[in-house]
């Protein structure tokens, strides 16, 4: 028997040891420097703690007195989320097909990817500010915002799913002389359907959450109610709204989880 080694180490991520240590040291010193150089005004922080105490003190006990307003706001958020999910998913399907490298011609692919990148690059709050300027305060701006938000997520995930399909099924349809659309419907839709349904449910869930946020900048829904409550120092009402939002999200999370488990 020839002599074989009895120790083994996993090869390091960066082969050059000098470079490796330089990178580690660089990262650590940058983080330390950032922490040290960020302007934190400790006097203000101390002030703020008092203010925070007042807010939380004022918030207890939560007040459900104006529950009519609360319910109206919540229902409006639900409507915004539903409409935006329906519109966003409907638009996402063709965009996802455009953005799937394995079935779209190159120019179409770039166009599809561009739409997704633009839809993803802005946070919903920024999109909402633009739409509130464009179409005025209210739920319509919220719906448009969340449609853009839905496309950014659903179209991207769906395009990735389309790129992972078993192409043999497409080949079988092509070999039978099937036209383009029939091929999509028979060989691709059945393969992406479970993911499509799962994504739609997840997006509804996500839109409901986001609709509360974009409401704060004037795009309607319970977020608007919450912003108003803060504006008028009604912290107890604000806490009630927050509790309802958290409750609604917990419920939708549970329901969507259950449905996704069933179809998975």
């Amino acid at each position, binding site marked *: 028997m020839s002599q074989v080694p009895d120790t083994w180490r996993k090869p390091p991520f960066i082969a050059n040891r000098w470079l490796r240590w330089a990178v580690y040291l660089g990262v650590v010193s940058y983080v330390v420097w950032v922490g040290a150089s960020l302007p934190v005004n400790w006097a203000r922080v101390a002030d703020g703690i008092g203010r925070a105490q007042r807010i939380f003190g004022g918030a207890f006990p939560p007040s459900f007195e104006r529950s009519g307003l609360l319910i109206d706001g919540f229902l409006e958020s639900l409507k915004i989320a539903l409409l935006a999910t329906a519109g966003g998913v409907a638009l996402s399907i063709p965009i996802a097909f455009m953005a799937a490298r394995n079935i779209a011609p190159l120019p179409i692919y770039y166009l599809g990817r561009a739409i997704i990148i633009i839809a993803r690059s802005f946070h919903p709050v920024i999109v909402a500010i633009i739409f509130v300027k464009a179409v005025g305060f209210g739920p319509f701006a919220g719906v448009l915002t969340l449609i853009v938000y839905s496309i950014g997520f659903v179209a991207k995930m769906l395009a990735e799913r389309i790129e992972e399909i078993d192409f043999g099924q497409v080949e*079988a349809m092509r070999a039978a002389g099937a036209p383009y659309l029939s091929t999509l419907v028979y060989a691709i839709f059945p393969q992406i359907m479970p993911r499509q349904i799962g994504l739609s449910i997840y997006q509804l869930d996500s839109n409901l959450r986001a609709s509360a946020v974009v409401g704060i900048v004037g795009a309607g829904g319970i977020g608007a109610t919450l912003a108003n409550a803060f504006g008028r120092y009604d912290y107890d009402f604000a806490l009630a709204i927050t509790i309802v939002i958290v409750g609604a999200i917990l419920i939708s999370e549970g329901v969507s989880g259950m449905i996704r488990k069933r179809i998975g």
Partner: protein
Amino acid sequence: MLKITDLVKRYGKGNPVLKNLDLTIEGESVVSIIGSSGAGKSTLLRCINRLVEPTSGSIELNGTELTSLHGRDLRTARRKIGMVFQGFNLVDRLTVMENVQSGRLGYISTWSAVMRRYPKEDIRRAYELMERVGIAHYANKRADELSGGERQRVGVVRALMQNPEILLADEPTASLDPKTSEQIMGLLRDLAGELKLPVLINIHNVTEAKIYTDRIVGMRYGRIIFDDVPDKLDQEAMDQIYSGSPHADRSEDMKEAS
């Protein structure tokens, strides 16, 4: 009649996978193509229905030149060429009936296909063929609930639904156990006789090729080096077909070229 003349297929800038290949298949014979992996069997089959684009040469099926077709004409030609795949390539999440009817997609409108409104005679033919291969009772089952042999039967019926003038089978039994494999080979041979259909089968199992087919074509790295009745395939011919490796063959060519 399928007539292939001077067919060349080259991927990228490398050596050709098919080298000036000629092959004629007449009447309703069952022909098997044998050869080691990388010999170009699959590429040859896929060139016929243009799942792979031939580089040059001619492929003629019953008078139609296939290599120059585009768009609608290509689809119309493909309807006449049935194909059976090694991995079955069924749509797992659809029912057996939908899978079988997908062989008719080239004939029916997209709208009828989407609405699953299949013509009466197509449904009747589907039941007849499924009865023939013994899967009619699975019509409403999802394709992924079936066993391998049953799935390949669906694949065969799907191809036959096209009313093909020729059937191509790309290693139809490679994913099956030996017994099921023999059943499928027997089925292909019998159906070829019943439907008066020429069948071209890529196969690794030489014993099965000898038993179930009328003619054996031996390929070695892009060329046909044997073409005769099964009885003539002796040890010497076998050695020639399976000796060496595609890599070695390639380097020989390099020497010739330089």
